[in-house]
């Protein structure tokens, strides 16, 4: 095995910090470019989707366990937060934590039997879970408002500030997202992260190396559910309205697409994937009725020519181009 000596490690560590600082800075100054336009609003959803994509990437990209039920955790967070604050008048911040803990426990409980499965069977089990939760959202009309949705969810407040504008919500959501990204980076570069990657490559080998495979898979599944639930709570308080259709099977698939397009096993890749899939439809509106065709074509194109996702595909594309353009000059 390759050994990283302490100097390399320090360099790596510093490198990560610089990257993260630049990324945060970029996110923090973005709103200046939007001048209060609607793109600011779209970027709030990029933030929420990044949160969800990072959560799924920990599970899918690092531990190699697929989940087609992520939208259910997102929805549980959104509906539970909405109902507890709007119907029962509880404190939104407290509820966000309580709900996230409850969703985490739920994931932990179902994780033990479900994560024994592999491949297609795991996909099917998580898919089934997602569908069950979706049906509950739809049918528990007295509680969730059923298919026509649940409205009247309060905005979050802290001290005297109410998060009721796009501008404030942008910083609220990106604040949470950046913290999550930082924690996730830390996690994947730790002993746990290496354990997860070992599970990804070979569960038997991981077990031989002393990784508690079963527990670790369930833990990361629960963590991913907790992050998704927090994203759901934030979504509910930002939108002030939730409807079951936002948490269906389609959205789970969209999340998997985000992670794969962005790059499996890359936290920043999750951001790229989330940003691309959220923003692309907006820019494709120029194609009017054909936007869906172009959208589909682009996705197919990207998966064919950038199988490692945007995060690896773009740099290699740039390199290729540079080599082709500057090829003659650098040879000389």
């Amino acid at each position: 095995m390759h050994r990283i000596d302490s100097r390399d490690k320090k360099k790596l560590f510093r490198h990560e910090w610089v990257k993260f600082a630049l990324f945060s800075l970029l996110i923090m100054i973005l709103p200046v470019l939007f001048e209060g336009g609607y793109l600011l609003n779209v970027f709030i959803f990029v933030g929420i989707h990044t949160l969800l994509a990072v959560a799924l990437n920990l599970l899918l990209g690092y531990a190699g366990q697929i989940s087609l039920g992520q939208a259910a955790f997102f929805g549980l967070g959104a509906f539970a937060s909405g109902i507890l604050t709007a119907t029962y008048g509880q404190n939104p911040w407290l509820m966000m934590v309580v709900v996230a803990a409850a969703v985490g426990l739920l994931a932990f409980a179902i994780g033990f039997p479900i994560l024994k499965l592999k491949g297609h069977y795991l996909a099917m089990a998580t898919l089934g879970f997602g569908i069950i939760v979706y049906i509950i959202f739809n049918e528990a009309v007295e509680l969730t408002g059923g298919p026509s949705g649940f409205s009247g969810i309060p905005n979050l407040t802290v001290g005297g500030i109410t998060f009721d504008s796009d501008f404030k919500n942008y910083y609220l959501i990106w604040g949470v997202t950046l913290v999550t990204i930082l924690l996730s980076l830390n996690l994947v570069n730790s002993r746990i992260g290496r354990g997860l990657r070992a599970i990804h490559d070979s569960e038997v080998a991981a077990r031989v190396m002393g990784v508690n495979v079963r527990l670790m898979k369930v833990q990361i599944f629960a963590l991913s559910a907790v992050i998704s639930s927090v994203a759901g709570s934030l979504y509910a308080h930002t939108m002030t309205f939730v409807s079951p259709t936002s948490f269906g099977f389609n959205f789970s698939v969209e999340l998997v697409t985000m992670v794969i397009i962005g790059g499996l096993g890359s936290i920043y890749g999750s951001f790229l994937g989330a940003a691309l899939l959220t923003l692309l439809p907006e820019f494709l509106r120029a194609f009017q009725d054909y936007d869906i065709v172009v959208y589909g074509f682009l996705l197919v194109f990207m998966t064919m020519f950038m199988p490692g996702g945007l995060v690896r595909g773009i740099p290699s594309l740039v390199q290729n181009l540079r080599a082709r353009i500057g090829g003659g000059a650098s040879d000389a």
Partner: protein
Amino acid sequence: MKRIVTLAAVLVTLFVATTVMAADPVRIGALFAVTGPASFLGEPEKNTLEMLVKEANAKGGIGGHKVELVVYDTQGDVTKAVQLANKLIKNDKVSVIVGPSTTGETMAVIPVAEKEKVPLISCAAGIKITDPVKKWVFKTPANDHVAAEKILIQATKLKQKNLAIITVSDGFGSSGREQLKALAGEKGFKIVADEVYGPKDTDMTAQLTKIKAAKPDAIICWGTNPGPAIIARNIKQLGMKVPLYMSHGVASKKFIELAGADAAEGIMLPAGRLTVYDKLQKNDPQVKLLRDYDQAYKKAYGVEASTFGGYAYDAFLLITGALKKGSNPEQIRDSLEQTKKLVSISGVFTMSPADHNGLDLSAFEMIRVAKGDWELVK
């Protein structure tokens, strides 16, 4: 480091400046579910509005203003609807928004319209949209409870006491179910069976067998195509002789086609006048407008006009009326609220500060299927 540079490059290219145009003419924004599961609503709405704007501009616009229409497809998704409502208001600077097509999307967009102070004329039927009244929110389809009441009045006439209801599990069905149960209780009916089916179900025999066992005097089905057509056929297959009511959600020839003239025979439902305009009395104030709409729509798109497209037509007429008194959002809102006796597709609108829908029981006619066609129920 290289990654950061590429990251930045991607982001910069993503922010291609969006076009900003001069706002001299009146800009109308529209949010319709043109694709996705609610496309049967969104598509005729979009077609109708585009047709009307073209017509109006050919005649020199409304009250001197040229009309610019910006239509976005929400795909029936609430998150997209909210984003696009923001886009219409902040980037396209529209003075009024028509849509969204479904109750869920409308409920999601309401906070945006209220906050940004732009009038919203929804094309969705849910009663929650205008009850309680919101300052900036109007809607054109009649409330679901008006249709439910129409059915129950007919049931009273026919002395049907015990009712079975079967509703679809989407926004339309759950709203209908709620209204039917509340009204039936008030009017002294007994609901002996309350069944639900999924929008994509292909066989409702199980629910109907349960209903059969409950021995109702009549069945009320609340849904949009194709579910109700399947129910009509299943009832026929089960040999049930119980009278069947449908909602206004299937008030088009398509329903008779899907169910088959045989299975549809005798089914009664409340419908907007557009469905039966050729059978109305000649002096009915709406007849001319309805005929014109149907013919113009057939000419432009080659298919029959639908009640759903009519919702967008109503919104356009409301805006046309409102524009005479000024074209900023505030003025439009105020004049929308003062709309009096506006003859339109869904009915005759009379708005007030306490009523932002403005339609009453007369918005619907009770009709019956007879030999593959509609007839008025007297």
